[in-house]
């Protein structure tokens, strides 16, 4: 018997609830600062600059109270990419040769460039992880909707995007649960999802996907009726239970981080 994953207590995203300063910041503040940091990191090209940026991120991690292992967990899936970037740059850049073996030449310039790119990638991932670790998906959605709202004039459907995200967040666990149920039902009838070559395995997924799709469409249909029955008529004239609000801390963090990252990007 093949064990079926249990999705019952799934959490979406990597949010770790907490009461720290970072947790309490307005999601818009965190999104903006993260965005700024991501862009800023591409302009830094000295080791001192990366050192300072790393220090800044370390401070944020410290203030968030999130155990650092959670941040490194985010790095695990991309470790290969980081290593590859480092190796390729180290061996493929022209310059002062440090070591040579066959056609492989390690250069000083390459080592420096590869190291910098690797550090940049690590800082990017760790930096953005702080955002998703300290902000619930719901708050993130609210923040994005609010930030995108001015873009409505140029055709960005801010409310609709946020609604889609909300509904996705609501239904992913339900659909996963249903997947599990259907898988068990099919396995009870002798379905085999695990063995065979790629083509056979893809084919064995068919009896899983068909009922799942049928049910998802039925759900969408019923949800639309239920939403209409509750007077949903788009974003126009809608208010919110949780209004986002900037506080003093938000202004301080925005101004402080803004100036610091700008300074790093321009001078380092």
């Amino acid at each position, binding site marked *: 018997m093949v064990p079926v994953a249990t999705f019952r207590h799934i959490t979406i995203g990597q949010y770790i609830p907490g009461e720290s300063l970072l947790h309490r910041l307005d999601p818009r503040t965190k999104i903006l600062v993260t965005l700024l940091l991501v862009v800023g990191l591409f302009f830094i090209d000295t080791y001192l600059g990366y050192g300072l940026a790393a220090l800044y991120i370390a401070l944020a991690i410290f203030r968030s109270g999130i155990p650092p292992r959670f941040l490194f967990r985010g790095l695990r899936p991309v470790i290969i990419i980081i290593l590859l970037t480092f190796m390729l740059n180290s061996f493929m850049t022209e310059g002062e040769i440090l070591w040579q073996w066959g056609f492989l030449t390690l250069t000083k310039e390459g080592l420096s460039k590869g190291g910098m790119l690797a550090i940049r990638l690590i800082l990017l991932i760790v930096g953005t992880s702080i955002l998703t670790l300290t902000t619930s998906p719901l708050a993130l959605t609210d923040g994005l909707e609010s930030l995108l709202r001015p873009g409505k004039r140029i055709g960005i459907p801010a409310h609709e995007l946020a609604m889609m995200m909300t509904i996705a967040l609501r239904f992913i666990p339900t659909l996963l649960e249903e997947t599990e149920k259907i898988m068990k039902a099919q396995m009870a009838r002798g379905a085999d999802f695990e063995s065979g070559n790629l083509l056979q395995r893809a084919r064995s997924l068919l009896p899983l996907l068909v009922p799942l799709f049928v049910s998802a469409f039925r759900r969408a249909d019923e949800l639309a009726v239920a939403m209409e*029955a509750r007077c949903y008529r788009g974003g126009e004239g*809608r208010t919110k239970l949780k209004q986002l609000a900037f506080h003093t801390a938000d202004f301080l963090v925005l101004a402080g981080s803004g100036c610091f990252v700008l300074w790093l990007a321009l001078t380092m």
Partner: protein
Amino acid sequence: MMGNKESFIVVDKVSFSYTGEPGAKEETALDQVSLTIEAGEFVAIVGHNGSGKSTLAKHLNGLLLPTGGDVWVAGMNTKDEHHRWDIRQIVGMVFQNPDNQIVAATVEEDVAFGPENLGLPTELIRSRVDEALAVVGMSEYAEAPPHSLSGGQKQRVAIAGVIAMRPRCLVLDEPTAMLDPVGRREVMETISRLNEEEGITVVLITHFMDEAVKAHRVLVMDEGRIVREGQPAAVFQEIDLLRELRLDVPPVIELASRLRAKSLALPEAILTVDEMVTALCQLRSGV
């Protein structure tokens, strides 16, 4: 009849077909249905699968518009576009599958969905949400994600989501069909309380006759028509009719009828186990 506007809800000779062709007989989901519902009433609608119960329910708040005839809610015609959202606010609907009517990823955000659509100010939404969750007894789950709740709890959240819009009428389309006995009891108690304590008009569609028995009035539907209407005590005495319409006969009523056949002098109005016990005890002390 230009809509007897004194009544809260008036359904006046409503016909409906999903294909838009009222002519084709087998396509007719509703056939000249007329009915009035007074404010504060508790009405149950029963009928076998495909008899048109859900179709009728969706007419009560303008989710479907009649192909023929009119529906009036608090004096407003559901065909009148200007009143569409007023009517939907006055008549709230709860559906069978709790999973497919909960919109948001936390309980309180979902209950807030309706008031948010009404454009209420934030503080008012907050108080409505807290109040509605308290009424259905779900206050402690305000921050929980819906998928972590039991079926009965989810259905109570769905009811809270409608209550938060302050409707005067609640239409529930088989709200207990997917629930276990515990969930069914939770939901039925909530519905009864809303009707008795909050004075909310209730229209309950159900397959469970023991739920219909709790109503003030029962409507029996068959092939798009209302074929019987009356107090549960009267309607459920017609055991042969219920059988003919492929409906369950509540066990207590079945038992009462069999005892009467054995010439036991039981009164007509026995609907619940308690009433049966009382009647039997009286019989014995009478002997």
